[in-house]
């Protein structure tokens, strides 16, 4: 028994698997119904409306519904999506034992201690039939999976089969008048829609369970006489076939297995028993220490069973479903239906090689567990659990490929596991003595070697080496030198391992973890999964691709991982070739899954610093999405991330982070809010890009900063202009500041006068020798003329002249990623041409200056370019100056001739290259980033 999931709870009386999702319902003796996800191992929901034990529960096959019945005599139908009980069906007069939906009609069948079975229509919410006849509690009732039959078991020691054909006919054509008449009769006389077909007598005590075979006319029943009985029926009669004895107490539930020829029963004797349905013999018994078993359920599609007991439930499988396989070069060898087969990847051809021996004893889990193949000798080792662990060695003659009639006597041996360690040598683990027997192809022992650690299993680890798995560690052991080459202490329950093709890396897979190590078992990374890891393979680039129950994932050498795709059913990867992933499914069929590998190839390229690859992938817009962007940001590649982002705010932030002022300006323009302009200004100032600082201040009308900027950059005429603006805005303080910056005493006096500060204006005028004004002001002040300090010579306070006037400061070198050059290649080519043209005027040129001044052209031309370049769009100027009516001369200061020239030039540049950048690259990314990964 392979336990997949276990819960601890009150006694579980009812169980039902969801037909598609990995969910199971468990109804408890405490009155609660639990809905579990048995894959993730989480409690999804609980439904607590029944009063007293809930004994029966069942999922609907297609609708989001389930039905439950309990000791409160109520049948409740629930919608698990809305977490609500939709309605309650009343009618039974005693405990309800089981409830079940019909697979096709809107019916529910229920069995009750009131000795009746009822069939309900859950759409009309009425009882459509009452099946009477049992004269004790009815313990279970269920529909036949195909025919119009119901089987029931009762404590009156009988099993009954009921024919509900009439009920179905009525449902199919309910408008029929005659049938309506019978409906009346039914109401009056208690039902002819369902009649007893057979009464099966044979049990000596009350019968607890009876169920149909999924396809054959067979019934199996279990009773308090501790027996399981098998019954057969035909059109006219039904009879007892055989009795299965073995349980030591009441048999609580019994059923046929849907896919194998076996019967599963459980009992209050705390055991689950598996029986061979043909030979009618016990195959296996699973016991629990303290818990009596009450209920069994089978998954309608998958090979899963569940059993409820006194303190919870278990979800389990009887047999392993992973096909044994072994990849060698271009082929994968595997076992399917008792045949050794191989599949060639290049031709995608399947060949049946040889039949393999059937296990002598009928027992579960005897199918091959592992395969090992020696290509030079064409020999295959098949290990299984037969006889407590054994192997078989098949040597396949080369010419027999394709001949299915070829049969040979396999060489056999006992041993925990067996693997090839060299061309013509294989190692067999002898657990009892903890040693390895090295054998040749004649199955003769060549050498014995004691193992350094208590080993559970051995695996291939390069020629002559073995990987030994113990409880607390794995080691690589050199068989010839008897040396431990590498050890990994990690309590991992190793299930499988996969070597990369160069034998440099190994992936160790356990139930819930993937561990990547190198060939000396030095740990590289560990990935933990919440659900089971199923298989894996290395791709040619060193990415490990693996599957869990429901995902296909990748793991990069640094331990980064992600999901490649979601899986409906578990698959076992055998080989990865580029985008093509070959795998085996549980039926042993080879499948080819084509995946989009670009995400992990991209990340791998980033990791390996293969920027040329990264770039070409970006250019071809092979991927995108928020995940990639945040990955790039997180890994310190904001400049790459920038190329994927559409959202302006994110773009702005990334641009600032990567110092790409150009894009930041473009984004800031789009966003156009104060905060962003301010941050842009700070970054531009940090880089020394005065033009953009100016532009940013202009956009936010931050006059004070702007004026100061002009001052320190030597644009004194602009400071004067700022002064005018301040005057216009009645910003006296600003005006005064600017006058002070300019060292214009006359202006200062004028401002002070206008502000009504006549004494101050007088002092200013008098100090700086503006006698005319001083006299006028003195006259106005009359006797309040302030006295000037005696004996002090005056001097005009002038701000020092800036070192670098009129232009950008030396620019901070922004580290440009290797990407940027390549990414902007198209746009930049033109840019550079123009830069060269501009460079003629500028002397020493810097690309960054061009970038920046381009932006000056974008907006900073509020003063300069607008007048000279009449084609400039309106509104670009950033603020309204129309009402100022300043003479053009003052607009284009002589000192800045070159600067404005450059601006014109760059205005052209912008027009030339911007559309290019925008439309080609950005729109490409834009379109792409809207697609979610």
């Amino acid at each position, binding site marked *: 028994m392979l336990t997949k999931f276990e819960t601890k709870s009150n006694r579980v009386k009812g169980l039902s698997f969801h037909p598609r999702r990995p969910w199971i319902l468990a109804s408890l003796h405490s009155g609660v119904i639990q809905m579990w996800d048995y894959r993730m191992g989480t409690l999804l929901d609980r439904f607590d409306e029944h009063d007293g034990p809930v004994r029966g529960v069942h999922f609907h096959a297609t609708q989001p519904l389930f039905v439950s019945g309990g000791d409160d005599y109520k049948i409740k139908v629930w919608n698990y999506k809305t977490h609500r009980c939709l309605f309650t069906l009343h009618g039974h007069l005693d405990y309800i034992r089981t409830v079940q939906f019909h697979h096709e009609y809107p019916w529910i069948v229920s069995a009750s201690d009131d000795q009746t079975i009822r069939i309900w229509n859950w759409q009309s919410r009425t009882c459509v039939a009452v099946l009477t006849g049992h004269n004790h509690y009815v313990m279970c009732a269920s529909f036949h999976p195909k025919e119009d039959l119901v089987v029931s078991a009762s404590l009156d020691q009988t099993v009954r089969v009921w024919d509900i054909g009439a009920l179905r006919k009525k449902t199919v054509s309910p408008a029929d008048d005659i049938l309506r008449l019978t409906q009346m009769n039914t109401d009056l006389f208690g039902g002819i829609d369902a009649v007893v077909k057979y009464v099966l007598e044979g049990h000596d005590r009350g019968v607890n369970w009876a169920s149909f075979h999924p396809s054959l006319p067979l019934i199996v029943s279990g009773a308090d006489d501790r027996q399981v009985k098998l019954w057969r029926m035909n059109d006219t009669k039904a009879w007892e076939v055989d009795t299965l004895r073995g349980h030591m107490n009441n048999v609580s539930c019994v059923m046929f297995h849907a896919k194998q020829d076996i019967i599963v029963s459980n009992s209050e004797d705390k055991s689950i028993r598996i029986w061979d349905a043909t030979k009618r013999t016990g195959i296996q018994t699973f016991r629990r220490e303290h818990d009596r078993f009450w209920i069994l359920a089978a998954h309608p599609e998958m090979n899963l069973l569940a059993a409820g007991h006194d303190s919870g439930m278990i979800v389990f499988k009887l047999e392993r479903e992973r096909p044994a396989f072994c990849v060698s070069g271009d082929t994968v060898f595997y076992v399917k239906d008792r045949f050794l087969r191989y599949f060639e990847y290049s031709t995608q051809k399947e060949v049946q090689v040889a039949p393999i021996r059937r296990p002598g004893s009928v027992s579960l889990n005897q199918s091959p567990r592992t395969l090992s193949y020696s290509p030079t000798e064409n020999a295959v080792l098949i290990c299984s659990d037969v006889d407590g662990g054994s192997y078989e060695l098949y040597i396949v003659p080369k010419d027999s490929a394709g001949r299915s009639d070829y049969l040979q006597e396999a060489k056999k041996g006992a041993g925990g596991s067996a693997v090839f360690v060299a061309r013509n040598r294989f190692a067999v683990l002898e657990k009892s003595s903890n040693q390895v027997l090295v054998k040749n192809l004649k199955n003769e022992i060549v050498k014995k070697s004691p193992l350094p650690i208590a080993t559970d299993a051995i695996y291939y680890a390069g020629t002559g080496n073995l990987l030994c798995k113990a409880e607390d560690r794995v080691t690589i052991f050199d068989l010839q030198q*008897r040396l431990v080459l590498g050890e990994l202490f990690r309590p991992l329950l190793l299930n499988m391992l996969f070597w990369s093709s160069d034998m440099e890396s190994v992936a160790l897979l356990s139930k819930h973890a993937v561990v990547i190590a190198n060939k000396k078992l030095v740990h590289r990374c560990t990935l933990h999964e919440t659900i089971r890891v199923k298989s894996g393979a290395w791709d040619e680039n060193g990415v490990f691709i693996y599957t869990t129950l429901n995902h296909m994932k990748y793991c990069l050498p640094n331990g980064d991982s992600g999901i490649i795709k979601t899986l409906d059913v578990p698959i076992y990867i055998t080989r990865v070739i580029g985008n093509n992933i070959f795998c085996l499914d549980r039926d042993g069929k080879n499948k080819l899954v084509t995946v989009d590998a670009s995400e992990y190839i991209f990340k791998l390229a980033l990791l390996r610093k293969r920027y040329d690859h990264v770039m070409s992938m970006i250019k071809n817009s092979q991927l995108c999405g928020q995940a990639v962007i945040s990955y790039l940001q997180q890994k310190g590649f904001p400049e790459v991330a920038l190329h994927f982002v559409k959202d302006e705010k994110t773009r702005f932030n990334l641009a600032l982070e990567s110092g790409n002022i150009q894009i930041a300006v473009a984004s800031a323009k789009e966003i156009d809010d104060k905060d962003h302009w301010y941050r842009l200004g700070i970054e531009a100032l940090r880089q020394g890009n005065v033009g953009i600082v100016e532009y940013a201040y202009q956009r936010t009308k931050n006059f004070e900063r702007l004026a100061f900027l002009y001052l320190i950059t030597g644009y004194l005429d602009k400071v004067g202009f700022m002064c005018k603006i301040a005057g216009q805005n009645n910003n006296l303080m600003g005006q005064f500041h600017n006058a002070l910056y300019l060292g214009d005493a006359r202006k200062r006096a004028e401002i002070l006068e206008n502000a009504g500060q006549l004494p101050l204006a007088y002092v200013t005028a008098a100090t700086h020798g503006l006698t005319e004004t001083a006299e006028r002001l003195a006259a106005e002040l009359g006797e309040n003329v302030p006295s000037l300090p005696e004996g002090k010579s005056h001097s005009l306070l002038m701000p020092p002249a800036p070192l670098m006037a009129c232009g950008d400061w030396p620019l901070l070198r922004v580290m440009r990623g290797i990407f940027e050059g390549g990414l902007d290649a198209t746009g930049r080519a033109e840019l550079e041409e123009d830069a060269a043209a501009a460079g003629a005027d500028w002397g020493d040129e810097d690309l960054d200056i061009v970038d920046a001044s381009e932006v000056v052209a974008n907006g900073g031309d509020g003063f300069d370019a607008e007048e000279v370049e009449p084609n400039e769009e309106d509104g670009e100027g950033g603020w309204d100056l129309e009402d100022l009516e300043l003479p053009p001369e003052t607009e284009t200061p002589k000192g800045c001739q070159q600067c404005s020239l450059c601006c014109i030039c760059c205005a052209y540049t912008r027009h030339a290259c911007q559309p290019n950048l925008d439309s080609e690259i950005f729109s490409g990314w834009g379109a792409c980033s809207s697609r979610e990964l």
Partner: protein
Amino acid sequence: MKSMASSPPDQLFGVRNSFYVGAYQAAITSSQSLPAHDLSPDDLLERDALLYRSYLAIGSHQLVVNEIGPSAATPLQAVKLLAVYLSGDAANKESVVSRLQDLLGDPAVGSNPILRLMAGTVFMHERDYAEALKHTNSSPAGTMELLALNVQIYLQMNRADHAEKQLRVMQQLDEDHTLTQLANAWVDLAMGGSKIQEAHLIFQDLSDKYPTTCMILNGKALCSIHMGNFEEAEALLLESLNKDAKDAETRANLMVCSLNLGKPATRYLK
């Protein structure tokens, strides 16, 4: 054999195998890096012998002659004699042979396997196969190395049948021993025919297991030549020539290849 069967890890394993497959430089480095205090006196002696033999193999005859003093143990004296023999002229050689005879006649040291091995090697160089076999193939039973030398001597005598018998003995002792594998390959090569395939697989296995050496590459190339794949052989040999431009065997084989491929062969003569 004694060290083969012992269960504690074999300290000299790496050195020995490097020497066997012709990775002499690796043998020298790893033998020098072995911690001397971990080794038994026997192992120590064997290590030194292997070290000096590796030096001999890369042609440093004089170094060996100078390093081994008169007080060194008999096996090392034997190695020194081989060094003298290999570096010396005819007169020297004669004295080496007579000195060897003296040592072999001494009942105290005469049966030392390394001494016998060296004697066998010298007599083989002397083309005195009978004398060589007298020492290498006598009782007490030889070591793996002596057995392997026997195989070589028989092959030199064109007695592949006897060589095969020796090989059987080796296989019974330890089939997976590197020397058994090598001897197997030599015998296969001498027998030719379908055996070539097996030899090829053995060399393939060795090259998977150990770093490729001129010896292994030459082995592979020989198999290819036997199978008529001269292009393949040439590629292998050129790889070998890259590793050691002076390797005589490689050059000789390359000439064979070139002649068969219709290419000028004289450039390998010089």
